[in-house]
Every structure is written in C-alpha cells, then in structure tokens.
C-alpha cells in the first residue's frame, strides 16, 4: 500500500512537469496543438500552451514566470498570479505534476 497522497500547492519554488499520461501533440487534421490525457482532450490557447511547454521538470515556477514576463513584455506580478492560478488548476486535475 502506498502512503496517502496530498494535494500539491504551487509555489515559486515548485518545479512543474507533465506526468507521463499527459502529452502535448500537434494534430495535423485540426492544425492545432492538443493536450491528450485519460478520457479527455484539451485545446489550450497560445498562452496556456506556452506555460505547459515550460513545465519541463527543470524550470521553477519563478523561472517560468520571469521567462513569460520577458517574452510577452508584461508585468511580472500580473503574469505570476495568472501562471500560479493556471498551474494550481492543472495540478488539481492531476494534469501537471509539481
């Protein structure tokens, strides 16, 4: 028996990655990127896709936020709130590992 798991909470130090059962894949039929997971297919918008792509198991959330703020020429604080909320939601659905 494994120990009871706990809900993971996103922090700036978290290092997110996609679990093995979740993958980003280009769909040539619909000419869009799909996120494939058990029973569900998601069609992320450009920014969501950009966040998910940076969940590489090496970058911290703080690093991801800094990168996005630089690339989109946006305020780091505003980006931080959005990214943390997004990752918490995806972690809660077990689609992102922290």
């Amino acid at each position, binding site marked *: 028996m*494994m120990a009871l798991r*706990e809900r993971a909470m996103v922090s700036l130090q978290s290092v997110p990655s996609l679990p093995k059962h979740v993958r980003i894949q280009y*769909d040539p*039929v619909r000419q869009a990127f799909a996120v*494939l997971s*058990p*029973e569900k*297919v998601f069609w992320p918008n450009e920014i969501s896709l950009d966040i998910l792509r940076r969940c590489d198991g090496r970058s911290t959330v703080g690093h991801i936020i800094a990168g996005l703020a630089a690339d989109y020429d946006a305020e780091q604080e505003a980006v931080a709130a959005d990214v943390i909320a997004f990752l918490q939601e995806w972690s809660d*659905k*077990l689609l992102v590992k922290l």
Partner: protein
Amino acid sequence: MSEPPLPPIGMLAELTHRCPLQCPYCSNPLELLKANRELDTQSWLDLFSQAADLGVLQVHLSGGEPTLRRDLEQLIAGLSARGVYTNLITAGVGIADGRIEAFAQAGLDHLQLSFQGARPATTERIGNHRGSHEKKLETARRTRAAGLPLTINAPIHRHNIEEVPEFIDLALSLGAERLEIANVQYAGWALTNRDQLMPERAAVDRQAEIVAAARERLTGIMNIDFVTPDYFAIYPKPCMGGWARDAFMVTPDGTVLPCHAAQTIPSLGFERFGTRSLAAIWTDSPAFNAFRGTDWMQEPCRNCERREIDWGGCRCQAMAIAGDAAATDPACAKSPIHARMAMLIDEAQRAATVPSKDEPFVYRRIGVVTEPA
C-alpha cells in the same frame, strides 16, 4: 446536414465480446458475437490507421475483455506508432504474467480497471466469477508497477451503491489517479435487469452527497468522475457528446456505430468497416446523419436553449422508453413522458421486494439470447 461533420476525436474499439465476467448490466448487445466473427489483426490495424488519418486522437480498447485478444500488444503498437492515445479498458481477470508490462512497452498510455464491488463478495456475485476481486487487485498492482496511470471504474446499482465510500478508499489505496463512479445506464443487458439493478431514491441522494464531499476532500489527489443515474435526473446527459459529433464505436465484427446501443433503433442500418472506408461511413452513413446536429429534433428539444448542451440526450433511451428515437430523452424534465421515469423507479422497487428466483440476474452470456439465423 447543412455543414460537413467535424472529424471524430475518440473511438471505442470493442475488440471482442468474449469475457470471463457475466455482469448483468454489460453494455454489449444482447446478441453477442462469437470469436469467429471478430476482425483479424490486419483489419483492426487498417481501421486504426484510417481512424488516425480521419482525426481520431484517442482510442479506447474495450470488449468484452480486450486482453483475450492475443494480438493486443500488436494493436497497441500500431496505434502508438500513429501517436494515438491508447486507453485499455479491462476487467483485469486472467491477464497472463508479463503482459501488462508488454502493453506498456508497446506504448499503452492508460489503463482503466473495473471493480464490480468494493468487497470481494460483491465483485464475485455481480461478475459471477469466483476469485475475481483478488485478481483485479493484482492487476492494479501490476499496472502501477509497470508505471501506467490507473483509473478505477465502478459501475453502480442497487447491489453496490452503499459501497461508494469503500470504492473511494479502494481506488486511493491502489494509487489510482481517477475513479469513475458510473451509475449503470439502462440499455441492453441492464435494461433486461432493470428491476433488479435500479437503486432506491434515498440511496441515490446519499451517493450524490458522498461523491460531492469526496471530490472536495480529494482535490489534487484523485479525480472522481461521476456518471449520474438518468432515471433520477432533471436534464439528460449529452450522450456520446452528441450523436456522431466527436466519437464513435466499432463492434468486434467491424460494424461502425454512433454509440453502444445504436443497434436497438430498428429504423437504422449500420455499415461495416471494409465495405466502405471509415471516412465515408463517418461522413455519409445515413445512420450517422440521422441524429447529427439539431435539425432532426422535435419539440421540446427543437427550441430548447439546452439543445447544444445535451443534444437531446440519449437516442436509445428515447427509443426504449418513448418508443421514438427522435423524441426528447425522457430523462429530461421537459419531456412529455418524464413522469414515466419515476413510475419505472417505483415499479423496480416493488419488483425488488418480491422474493427472487435462483439467480438474481439474467447474467450476460453468449447464447442466452439466440442470434437470428
């Protein structure tokens, strides 16, 4: 149809009707196909390849018991080579040593394992298979050891609805990422056994509370999908996400269907893969176009603000209860015969209090219902 249909996203492949279990609510048709009617390996591989070309992103390998197909590794590898997300739906009984590892190596993405009960006696009684619970536990352990994500599927009815809290504990203890609490849909075998399977209203209400509380408590720990019972509903489900809208299924002999029970609609004829391409069947088949979109709808669906939320609900349930496949699903409170659902619940309660015969159910078996010549 005014516009051409969008490409399908999902496909359910019933590789075989053979199964070691005899669950009285099986979603297979009453007329089960024997092994000699099953498509061969190459036909399935051709079908999967055409499905990928057409836009299918996920294939659910089911049955019957799909692991009875000795070529399952090959079929998974074929799908994996095309980048299709593969989900194996198994009863987890009698899978030979090393095979789950072989499925994982072939590229399997996810495994869904059914439990008929949270207690061994319930699992054995519902599936009519001695020792099945232990075998399922072992399958779950091997699945996790092979590094595969796991969903536990619990079909719910009168005889196990009180075990819902135990199903939640069981799924957690097995390390599952997902649990499906799936109230039985009354089509096919389940319709035959409806009076024996229908839960009581009080138990349904308790179940809803238990699931809601568990979902909250287990946020970020385990996902719980709740398939609510239609007969107790106010609105119908968007069955299959809408008829022929983004998914389809294939029977063991290659017949392509919009849903499990579509063959219970007598006015429809279905085509087999091989006689025409999958793309042609999906796009042009009269059976697929019969209830596509909203043009076919009658009142109250036709002008309902929910018509593109639930797509009129389940066509097969409309057929079974209203006697008209184009009627509003009687699960909907707006259906003129919605009250019949409550009457059927009451009838089932009365029937269930009558002392039962030797066998509590009509168990699912090949030949219980004879095939037409």
